[in-house]
């Protein structure tokens, strides 16, 4: 449907089951009847000052909020003053509270398609499964191929199909959390839809966004897609075993990323050959310990 990025509505699925859209979950909405619903015609009355500017009346046409005088006409101003994504952020806060209470360390993995997210996850799970209970939420437009690859490692994985949608949102993750029944002090990976643009603005309630850039891509991607690198707390430079065969400039890529996000930590890894993986594993373990410690301070009775 979307001509910009291919996103759409009404096709979201979790493990193949259709997900109810939020807008239709509540009570019926009061729609203004369309013209075609009327069998008769109304005498056309001036519906607003904007439609029919009359000399001597207040000019609403300037289009600048704050110039209106409430009470001078049928129209009035309603202040909202809220973030457009306030609803998503509310769901994200709920997810974050749910995860914090249980000492669960959640990471939101974001990258363009083909950077090696799923391979990285499979290797990471192999290295960590004996230390923590691990679970994965997989986001893809279609198929459950990735969830199947994760399940083959023996850890639970839930596949969210976004249909035409180009990112996961906090409401989807909230529903997934209900279905996953995660263990306390566990590790949750959320593999977002492969897309360097849309997932950047949607908080899922995770502890950190981790952006993965592979050396088979251009080193200027952090400049081309700055929002994602700005939103991430860690950058993994993947497929570093291929560097001898490429003209990729590692120093330049890191410099670009840190120009967009000053101080962004970067780890150079190779998921397939294992290079740099111990540092990545250490980073995760430190996060898991922090999450577990915080939940114990908050709820000493909850083990």
């Amino acid at each position, binding site marked *: *449907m*979307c001509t*910009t*990025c291919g*996103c*759409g*509505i009404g096709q979201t699925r979790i493990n193949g089951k259709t997900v109810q859209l*939020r*807008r239709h979950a509540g009570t019926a*909405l*009061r*729609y*203004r009847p*369309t013209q075609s619903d009327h069998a008769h015609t109304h005498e056309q009355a001036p*519906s*607003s000052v*904007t439609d029919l500017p009359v000399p001597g009346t207040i000019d*609403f046409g300037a*289009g*600048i*909020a704050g110039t*209106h005088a409430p009470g001078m006409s*049928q*129209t*009035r*101003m*309603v*202040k*909202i*003053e*809220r*973030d*457009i*994504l*306030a*609803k*998503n952020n509310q769901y994200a806060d709920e997810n974050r509270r749910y995860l914090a209470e249980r000492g669960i360390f959640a990471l939101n993995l974001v990258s363009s398609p083909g950077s090696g997210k799923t391979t990285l996850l499979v290797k990471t799970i192999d290295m960590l499964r004996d230390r923590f209970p691990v679970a994965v939420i997989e986001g893809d437009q279609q198929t459950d191929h990735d969830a199947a690859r994760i399940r083959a490692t023996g850890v639970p994985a839930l596949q969210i199909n976004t249909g035409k*949608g*180009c*990112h996961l*949102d906090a409401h989807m993750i909230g529903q997934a959390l209900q279905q996953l029944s995660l263990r306390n002090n566990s590790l949750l990976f959320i593999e977002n839809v492969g897309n360097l*643009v*849309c997932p*950047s*603005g*949607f908080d899922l309630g995770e502890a950190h966004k981790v952006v993965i850039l592979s050396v088979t891509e251009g080193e200027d991607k*952090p*400049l081309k897609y*700055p*929002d994602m*690198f*700005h939103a991430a707390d860690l950058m993994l430079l993947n497929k570093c075993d291929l560097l001898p065969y490429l003209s990729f400039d590692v120093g330049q890529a890191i410099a*670009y990323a*840190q*120009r*967009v*996000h*000053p*101080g962004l930590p970067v780890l150079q890894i190779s998921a397939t050959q294992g290079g740099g993986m111990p540092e990545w594993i250490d980073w995760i373990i430190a996060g898991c310990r922090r999450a577990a410690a915080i939940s114990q301070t908050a709820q000493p009775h909850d083990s």
Partner: protein
Amino acid sequence: MHELSLAENILQQIEDTAATQTFHRVKTVWLEIGQLACVEQESLRFFFAVVTEDSIARQAKLEIIGIAGQAMCQECNRTFPIAAYYEACPHCGSDALQITNGDEMRIRELEVE
């Protein structure tokens, strides 16, 4: 970013507001969109028109107020306008900038009747 999703979020907040503050038609919606926010304004306008069809915000005018990007340099503590995340401090050349303005996406107010 995902402008369709943003448009749906805007409509949802309008409908939530309509449920508490009685009005039957939205004539104008004012948004504040920062220069650094990942929003394509033309795309947002297009999707807003699509999702508000058959809603109380049908044919509502969308007024987008641009908020200029602004950053503070963490080296020299000066504040200055920026147009992109990758810009450096024009005074000392440092990349260590903190965004102080221009990454917001807010619904400011509605004109309703």
